[in-house]
C-alpha cells in the first residue's frame, strides 16, 4: 500500500499536535477540566464528520443525528457497564457495538425514508429522533439498568485523550478516503443533482443509504466514546437540540468540507466553555444570548460557511490537479448549492 506524501505530513502534524497537548497537560496549564472540554470537542468531531458525510457531501438533510449518537452511547455504556471489566478491550468492543447498532438502525430507518425530499426528510428524521428519545426515557421498563428518564450512570470511564485522539485520527482518514473514492464522488453527484446522477447510471438509493448508514455509525461511535468519558447519560442530552448542534457545526464549517467540520467542531466545543469562563458567575445568564448572537452574525457574514467546498491541502489523499484561478486547492466536492 502506497502512502501518499500528504498522508505522511498529516500524520506528522497530528503527532505534533498530540505532543503539544501532552506538554500542556504535564505542565499543568491544561487542567483536568479543560482536558474534558477538549476530549468532548474531539468526540463531537467524530459525530459531526458523520453528519458532514450525510448532509455536507450527500445532501441528505438529517435532523435526527443526535438519536444515533445517543443509541451508540447507551449501547456502549450498557455493554461495558454490565459485561465489561473496565479494560481497554471492552472499551473497543463496546464502542464498536454502539457504532454497529447505530448503523443497523440507520439502515432499517433509512431504506424507507431516504426517498423523501429534502425538507420532508428533515422532519422525518426529526420525528425519528424524538421517538428514540421517548424510547430512551421508557427503556428502563424493559432493561432496568438503562435508567430511563432519570438517566444512567456507572459506565466505566476508560476513554482518555490518547485513545480519543487516535480514534479521531482514524476516523478522519476513513472519511477522507471515502470522500475521495468512487463512492464519495457518487455521493457528491447525488447532492449536486440527483436526477442527473440517476441518469448517469449511479444507483442513488444505494449510495444514499450507504452514506447515511456510515454517517450514523460514526455518530454511534462518537456516542460510545462519550459514554466512556462522561459519567452520566441522560435522554435529554440526545434530544433534537443536540441534533441542531451537529447541523450548526456542519453548516458553519461549510458544506462539503471535512476541514471546516473539524475546525468548527473543535471551536464550537470550546466556545460555550470559554464563554462560561470569560463571563464569570455574574454574567452567566448572558452566555446563551452571546452564543446565539455569534451564530446569527457568523451565518450572515459568511453564509456559505467557513470552508465551503474547500479542503486544507494536507487533508487530501494526494495533491489534486484541480486549481482555481487564485491557485487555491479546490476539491471536486464543492458546496452543493
Amino acid at each position, binding site marked *: 500500500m502506497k502512502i501518499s506524501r500528504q498522508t505522511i505530513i498529516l500524520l506528522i502534524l497530528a503527532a505534533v499536535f498530540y505532543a503539544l497537548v501532552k506538554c500542556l497537560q504535564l505542565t499543568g496549564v491544561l487542567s483536568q477540566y479543560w482536558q474534558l472540554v477538549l476530549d468532548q470537542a474531539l468526540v463531537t468531531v467524530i459525530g459531526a464528520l458523520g453528519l458532514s458525510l450525510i448532509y455536507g457531501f450527500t445532501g441528505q438533510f438529517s435532523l435526527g443525528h443526535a438519536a444515533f449518537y445517543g443509541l451508540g452511547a447507551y449501547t456502549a455504556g450498557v455493554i461495558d457497564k454490565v459485561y465489561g471489566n473496565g479494560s481497554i478491550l471492552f472499551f473497543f468492543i463496546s464502542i464498536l457495538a454502539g457504532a454497529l447498532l447505530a448503523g443497523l438502525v440507520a439502515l432499517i430507518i433509512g431504506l424507507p425514508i431516504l426517498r423523501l425530499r429534502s425538507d420532508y426528510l428533515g422532519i*422525518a428524521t426529526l420525528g425519528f429522533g424524538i421517538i428514540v428519545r421517548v424510547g430512551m426515557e421508557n427503556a428502563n421498563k424493559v432493561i432496568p439498568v438503562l435508567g430511563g428518564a432519570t438517566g444512567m450512570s456507572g459506565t466505566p470511564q476508560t476513554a482518555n485523550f490518547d485513545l480519543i485522539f487516535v480514534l479521531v485520527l482514524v476516523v478522519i482518514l476513513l472519511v477522507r478516503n471515502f470522500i475521495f473514492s468512487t463512492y464519495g464522488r457518487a455521493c457528491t453527484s447525488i447532492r449536486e443533482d440527483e*436526477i442527473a446522477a440517476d441518469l448517469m447510471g449511479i444507483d442513488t438509493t444505494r449510495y444514499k443509504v450507504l452514506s447515511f448508514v456510515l454517517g450514523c455509525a460514526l455518530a454511534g461511535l462518537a456516542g460510545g466514546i462519550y459514554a466512556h468519558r462522561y459519567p452520566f447519560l441522560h435522554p435529554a442530552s440526545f434530544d433534537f437540540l443536540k441534533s*441542531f448542534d451537529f447541523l450548526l457545526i456542519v453548516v458553519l464549517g461549510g*458544506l462539503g468540507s471535512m476541514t471546516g467540520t473539524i475546525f468548527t467542531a473543535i471551536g464550537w466545543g470550546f466556545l460555550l466553555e470559554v464563554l462560561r469562563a470569560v463571563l464569570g458567575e455574574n454574567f452567566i445568564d*448572558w452566555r446563551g*444570548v452571546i452564543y446565539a448572537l455569534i*451564530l446569527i452574525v457568523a451565518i*450572515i457574514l459568511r453564509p*456559505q460557511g467557513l470552508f465551503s467546498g474547500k479542503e486544507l491541502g494536507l487533508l487530501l489523499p494526494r495533491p489534486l490537479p484541480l486549481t482555481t484561478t487564485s491557485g487555491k486547492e479546490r476539491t471536486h466536492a464543492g*458546496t452543493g448549492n
Partner: protein
Amino acid sequence: MEHVLEQIINGLQLGFMYALIALGYTMVYGVVQLINFAHGDVFMVGAFIGYFGFAVWGLPLPLAIINAMVVCALLGVIIERIAYRPLRYAPKIAALISALGVSLFLEYFSSLKFVFGPDYRVVPRPIQEVHWHVLGLPITNIQVMVIVVVLVMLLLLQLLIYRTRIGMAMRTVAVDHNAARLMGVNVDTTISVTFAIGSAFAALGGVLYAIAYPQIQPFMGIMPGLKAFTAAVLGGIGIIPGAVLGALIMGQVETLTAAFISSQMRDAIAFTILILVLLIRPTGILGRSQTEKV
C-alpha cells in the same frame, strides 16, 4: 361514551392552538421557503406580552390580545429584516441556521432578569371559568373561546388571502418571486406582511395557550413550535388548510394517546404517525407533488 367525546374536545382545543402557530409556519414557508424555527419563540413572546397586558397592566382581555398581536407582528418584521433578508439569496440552509440563532436568542434574551426573567410564572386567569354541560359533556368557556376565536381568525385569513390585493401579492410571491417583481409586486413588503401576520397569529396562540395552560416561561415555545411545525408539514407545508388539518390531527393523536394509551408515549406515537403519513404521501396530506424540471 361521553368520556371519549370529552377527550375529543380536549384534543380539539389543543389542535386549534397548534393551528394558530402552524399557520405562521406554513405561510412563511410558502412565501420564502424558510422553516422559521424562531416562530415558536414569537409564540412565547406573545404569551408573555399578553400576560403582562391582562395580569400586570390590568388591560381588558381583548385589548391585551390585540396589544400582544401588534407587538409580535412588529417583532416578526424586525426579525425578518435583520436575520433573514440578508440571506435571501444565499443557500437555504443558511437562513435556517439564522432562524435557529434567532430562536436561541429570543429564549436566552427573554431569560435575562431585566427582560422576562427565567422564572416560571403562574398566569392568573383573566376570565372566570364557567363549566357547562352540553348533551352530558362537560365543556368550559375557555375551550369554547379557543375554538371560536380560531375559527373566526381562519375565516378572516381566508378572506385576506383570497379577497384582497395583499393576499394576491402573497400568493404570487409564493409561486415565483422574480415574476412577481416583474409584475410590479413589492416583494420585500409582501414578505414583511406575511411575517407580520404569521407572528400575530402566533401571539394570539400564545395568549390563548397561557390562559388554557396557565404557566409561562421563556422556553415554553420549543415543543409547541416543533409540534406545530410538524403539523404544518403533515398537512402539506405551504398550504394553509393543510396546516389546520395537520394541527387538528396532531392535537387529536396526542390527546387520545395520552388518554387511552400512555401519557409518556404521546410524542412518540404522534411522530410515528407523521413518519407513516410522509411515507405514504411524501408531500403531506394536502400537499401537491412538485414536479422537478430536469
